[in-house]
């Protein structure tokens, strides 16, 4: 039994915190909302080796696992750093598993010379037989892009980190609806990437459209495409852990300094209990982040359950932590000058990405029910 971070993982975490601490990312997040440029933090990521986190050593990467990727995501989340790992890490993880991966491309991606983004599709479940993608608006999901005769056609919306990516790794289906993965040149003919900023300037998103785009079809072991969807969920969960930690730390600090009726507001049970609720949700999330990291490496059949659970806990933690950060500060917490709204914006937007947490909760239920049916 060993369910704690290793010394190396703690070192990675601390190094990430150190590297990101040298940049004023939170201030930049506010300025970007006002039309300023989002600072390019990719050089920080490259120097730290994050682009190659999940790329195997033979392909020039670090050959690490989901837990390390989530730890880095947590540090990025903590300071709202706009680093396109949510797109790049799943994309490279998937490419690395392909039998026909181009070694030279893998090396460039691992070093961060070029960037990739994963264009996700939601795997089927007991109620929805098809692979689906996020619609531009509304609750009705669209069909995943279709790969036929080597050409890719279709669209996907709110794709993380697609703007500026050199390569798109697309979750698609063939004529029969079976999953296929395609590597697409983001600047190639028949590919359009429309950058879109909503509510949180540090989250890079795009509407992506393919019209007969030429692709390299990837030769993957079964289940890789679905696992990549869950890996993306894990990264959102990792980010949320860092955000919740930051919100809790800031809230507790303020609750000790701010006095009303002659005593610190943190001494009132109403305030105290709500801050403890951040801690409770955050520690649940941490346990599930570890679970997801462990499952991807050691128990892949549990990975959909573990990653979906982590995603649900992430959104529960995000929602309470970012709202509480505002509330504990009173009116000032809701002003533009305060940092709390920036974390709130991140939370609001993240909770609606990659299917949203409601979808992950349903997945948890579906996985558990499937397990119960199999055991019966």
């Amino acid at each position, binding site marked *: *039994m*060993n*369910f*704690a971070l*290793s010394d190396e993982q703690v070192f990675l975490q601390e190094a990430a915190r150190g590297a990101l601490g040298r940049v004023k990312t939170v201030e930049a997040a506010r300025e970007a909302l006002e039309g300023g440029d989002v600072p390019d933090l990719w050089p920080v990521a490259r120097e730290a080796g994050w682009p190659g986190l999940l790329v195997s050593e033979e392909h020039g990467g670090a050959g690490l696992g989901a*837990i390390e990727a989530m730890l880095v995501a947590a540090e990025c989340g903590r300071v709202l750093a706009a680093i396109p790992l949510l797109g790049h890490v799943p994309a490279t993880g998937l490419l690395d598993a392909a039998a026909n991966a181009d070694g030279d491309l893998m090396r460039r991606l691992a070093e961060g010379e070029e960037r990739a983004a994963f264009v996700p599709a939601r795997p089927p479940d*007991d*109620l929805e037989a098809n692979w689906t993608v996020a619609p531009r608006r509304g609750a009705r999901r669209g069909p995943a892009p279709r790969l036929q005769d080597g050409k890719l056609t279709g669209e996907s919306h709110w794709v993380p980190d697609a703007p500026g990516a050199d390569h798109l790794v697309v979750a698609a289906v063939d004529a029969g609806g079976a999953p296929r993965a395609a590597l697409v040149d983001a600047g190639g003919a028949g590919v359009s990437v429309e950058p879109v900023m909503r509510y949180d300037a540090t989250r890079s998103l795009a509407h992506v459209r393919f019209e007969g785009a030429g692709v390299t079809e990837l030769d993957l072991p079964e289940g890789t495409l679905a696992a990549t969807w869950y890996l993306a969920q894990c990264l959102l969960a990792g980010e949320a852990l860092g955000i919740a930690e930051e919100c*809790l730390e800031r809230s*507790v600090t303020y*609750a*000790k300094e701010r006095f009303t009726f002659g*005593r*610190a507001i*943190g*001494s*009132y*049970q109403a305030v*105290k*209990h709500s*801050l*403890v*609720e951040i*801690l*409770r949700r955050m*520690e*649940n*999330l*941490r*346990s*599930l982040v*570890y*679970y997801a*990291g*462990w499952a991807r*490496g*050691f128990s892949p059949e549990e990975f959909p*359950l573990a990653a*979906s*659970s982590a995603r*649900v*806990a992430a959104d*529960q933690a995000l929602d309470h932590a970012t709202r509480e950060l505002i509330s504990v500060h009173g009116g000032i917490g809701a002003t533009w000058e305060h940092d709390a709204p920036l974390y709130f914006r991140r939370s609001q937007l993240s909770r609606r990405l990659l299917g949203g947490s*409601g979808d*992950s*909760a*349903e*997945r*948890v*239920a*579906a996985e*558990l*029910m499937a*397990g*119960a*049916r199999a*055991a*019966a």
Partner: protein
Amino acid sequence: MDLSDTPEQAAYREQVRAWLTQHRDDAPVLHGEGAIEDPAEAVRAHRAWQRKLAEAGYVGLTWPAEYGGQALGPIEQVIFNQELTRAGVPGILDTIGVGMLGPTIMAHGTEEQKQRHLGPMLHADEVWCQLFSEPAAGSDLAAIQCRARPDDDGWRLSGQKVWTTNAQFAAYGLLLARTDPDVPKHKGLTMFIVPMDAEGITVRPLRQITGKGEFNEVFFDDVRLEAGAEVGPVDGGWAVGLTTLMFERLAIGAGADSFGYRADRFAASIAADETAASSTEVRQRFGELSVELIALRFTGFRMLTAIQRGAMPGPEAALGKVTMVRAAIDAGELLADVIGPEAFSDEEYGEIISFLPGLKSAGGTEEILRNIVGERVLGLPPEPRLDKGIPFSELRAREREEARA
């Protein structure tokens, strides 16, 4: 991260499994189909089962060998509990004694007390109960009023305890009493070993929402305690009580699954109802509560890892209880919504629905646990206290006055 057994742990698991396979037919059926109906008969059978486990070396796994334990680690205890669950047989009867009170006596008792009591406790020859809470002292445990007065070289005990599990058949109780009311309330307390057959003790069952009487109230009317009944120093009982509470946390940490509220069990009931199983609302509610139960399991593994490395579980362990109760209440609500009124006659779900409201207060109310975690883990300042440094007798007088006003 690695959740697999080491070769030694795997061998131990194998040994436990083989023993349980061989002896499972000796285990009593306490719940569900074919359960023993007569409560006294169920206790007798459960005691016999504990004795059998003890004789085979499966009780007090973490106790030192000199007191009849196996000197194993918390991981072996977890392995053993997992194998019990797998075999579908109950564990020991006296979890409170073996898990909390025995270790307290080991930490604070005299050698004579240890030699006299620990062996019979382990074998369920003598079952124990915990006599801490009172009608007017639960969350504020140091407010207890049960009074022990010196009497020759022994003591005279008067007062009332409540929520006492197993008191109706316990041979001994570990009791916290006030020995000096004229000092601030934490300072005048002493821990005692009380023989439950002493003259002047009355045990009355308390029926709960479930209809069952798992708890008791216990009355002490001028009960004589012999010299040497004290555990730890006279007026030093608060520290002894804290030791018991620490072992309670350890028990919770090492047995996160032990209440049996596991998401995979509820999943079968929901999956069996096709309409519910395809309802978005049901799926989301079930998914969300399951996430909390799954988180609890892995938080337990984190805690075990820390314990294995020599750490003692801190106050943050209390959050596990909060999460468990919340998630189990949600599960009861969902199952009742899905199944309808029939849910209340389901042995298992009816029990969950009726048992949980009380569990919210047991072992520390959610409110007091949040206070403890907020103050000791987050470092938030306490609420101003009106009892600090005031002799207990004076405090009581003030409270009475204020209540009258």
